[in-house]
């Protein structure tokens, strides 16, 4: 049987650089010119199948309003296997913001986390403020993956996620949450949702 792996991926970057648009393109192959700031959906999954038939399922966390004032919860980084830090190639300030997110990740996240720096809105290269060389050089110095994407045209999107999937350790201990039940330390967890159905109909009292 082919291997199935599951990983938690977090998105970081300044507001409006296109984090949610990248996810939308990757997961649903759609694009929306007038996207509102992320509301209502920030937990999506998408699967990538590698050449050796290994399937890598990403559990994708989008930031949603907590990053604006640097108030992301530790829960957000917890057990993240990979992070995509996004900047907008037409806004040099957004690369500065990306650098500070990368420093934050290096401090807070698991040291083995795989970080990809992603220059989005490549379709707007006429208004480019961040050169490929500059971003690439920085990524190399910090040991990050790097690529340019356009959530609008779709260019580079599948490629960057597939590159991450390939780089993820294929025999890694699965993260507690992303790897499903079991957790890192022994005794299996309990699934509250499984009981949800039973609970609603649960009026018979003591069945101990």
């Amino acid at each position, binding site marked *: 049987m082919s291997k199935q792996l599951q990983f938690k991926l977090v998105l970081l970057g300044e507001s409006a650089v296109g984090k949610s648009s990248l996810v939308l393109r990757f*997961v649903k192959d759609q694009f929306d010119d007038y996207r509102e*700031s*992320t*509301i*209502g*959906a*920030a*937990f*999506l*999954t*998408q*699967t990538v199948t590698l050449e050796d038939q290994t399937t890598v399922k990403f559990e994708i966390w989008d*930031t*949603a*309003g*907590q990053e*604006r*004032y*640097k*108030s992301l*919860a*530790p*829960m*957000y980084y*917890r057990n993240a296997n990979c992070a995509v830090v996004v900047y907008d190639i037409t806004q040099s300030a957004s690369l500065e913001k990306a650098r500070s997110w990368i420093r934050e990740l290096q401090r807070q996240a698991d040291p083995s986390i795989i970080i990809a720096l992603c220059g989005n809105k490549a379709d707007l290269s006429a208004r480019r403020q961040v050169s490929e060389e500059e971003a690439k050089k920085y990524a190399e110095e910090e040991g990050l993956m790097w690529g340019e994407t356009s959530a609008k045209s779709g260019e580079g999107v599948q490629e960057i996620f597939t590159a991450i999937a390939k780089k993820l350790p294929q025999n890694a201990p699965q993260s*507690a*949450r992303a790897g499903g*039940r079991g*957790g*890192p*330390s*022994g*005794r*299996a*967890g*309990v699934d*509250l*949702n499984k*009981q*949800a159905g039973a*609970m609603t109909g*649960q009026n018979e*009292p*003591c*069945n*101990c």
Partner: protein
Amino acid sequence: MDEEYDVIVLGTGLTECILSGLLSVEGKKVLHMDRNDYYGGDSASLNLTQLYRKFRPDQALPTDLGRDRDYAVDLIPKFIIASGELTRILVHTDVTRYLEFKQIAGSFVYRDGRISKVPSTEMEAVKSPLMGLFEKRRAKKFFEFLQNWKDDDPATHQGINLDKDSMATVYEKFGLEPGTQDFIGHAMALYLDDDYKTKPARPTYERIVLYTSSMARYGKSPYIYPLYGLGELPQSFARLSAIYGGTYMLDKSIDEIVTDDSGKFVGVRSGSETVKAKQVIGDPSYFGAGKSAESGKVRVVEEGKVIRAICFLKHPIPGTDDADSAQIIIPQNQVNRRNDIYIAMVSSTHNVCAKDVYVAIVSTIVETDRPEQEIAPGLQLLGPIYDKFVSVSSLYTPTSSGEADQIFITRSYDATSHFETVVDEVHNVWKRVVGKELVLKKREVEVEA
């Protein structure tokens, strides 16, 4: 900060975060602030650095407790009762996707100088030393009575009226000994004192049913606990709020609650900026708790004190069969007190500390002016204590319902061992803020790719 909000929420404790999450889902524009640079307020879980900063700012971290980042030490000891209301909210709001839970391995009760496991299976019950043979038979009759009770079938009532007869009357009818009453009232119905006995039996009946159905749900104890500590709970609801448009600002000093001439809420001042909103919700610490009332209105009053001792152990608690987690209840009668003493213990199984460390919190409602002596019977059960952080906290309650000035203050976290009163408080505040009952909408079941 020149936007105007529907609601500003102050403090990221669990009560505030659940409210913030539910209000955002309801479509309200929420700004959620905290003076601390971490989530959770009084219900946070801290790493070692944060714990020492809070309790012993002048002391360096010990080197033999393992990695700082492995720690998530709860400030208030509570467990989630498996079939309780918090579980229902967790499931309905779908925040369970951010959390992972494990059982608490055992629930114990102190009786005549030693602790025994609260039986979780028939086998354990038969073997339990908590009751003699004849008392077990009487207890069995009592539990059968509760189990078979149907409101609309008088044949199951055996002459008892749950809404009129006191619990003492019910105990008497089944001839249960005082020790069994302690066990049922304190280890199962989870009452902190004996006041319930003189009151109608219905609430006690409901609590026993909640306990036994929770016990039956996962098998070992009626409790579950989130990996990485209780502090994950407020974080998960904060995320829910953020996903529905809530804005978060941590590490923000709250300098003034601004009101108009009539005393009605206008906004919150932080430094030189004032953010406006229609309503404010917050924990007592943002409304003058613990400060002298010389400046302005008295908005909260103290209604009691709780002592909590966070203890690091390097061994499981003796007599618990090396349980990796446990609750131990010392019923008040057993140690000549008015209020029970609780011990809540978790360990690396729940990803809250380094391997081979056990974190036990001993707590009770303060009855004297020497609170630390009051918890001695609990501390004694722990064996050698590696280190201990003791705090006495006041429990505050608001002086008004908040409807007049649109300032809604939540109550402090009480001494109960679970979150049921927190959920009551959420319902309570919701009703005052929104003007109608909180109805948890049915969860949309989403099939993921």
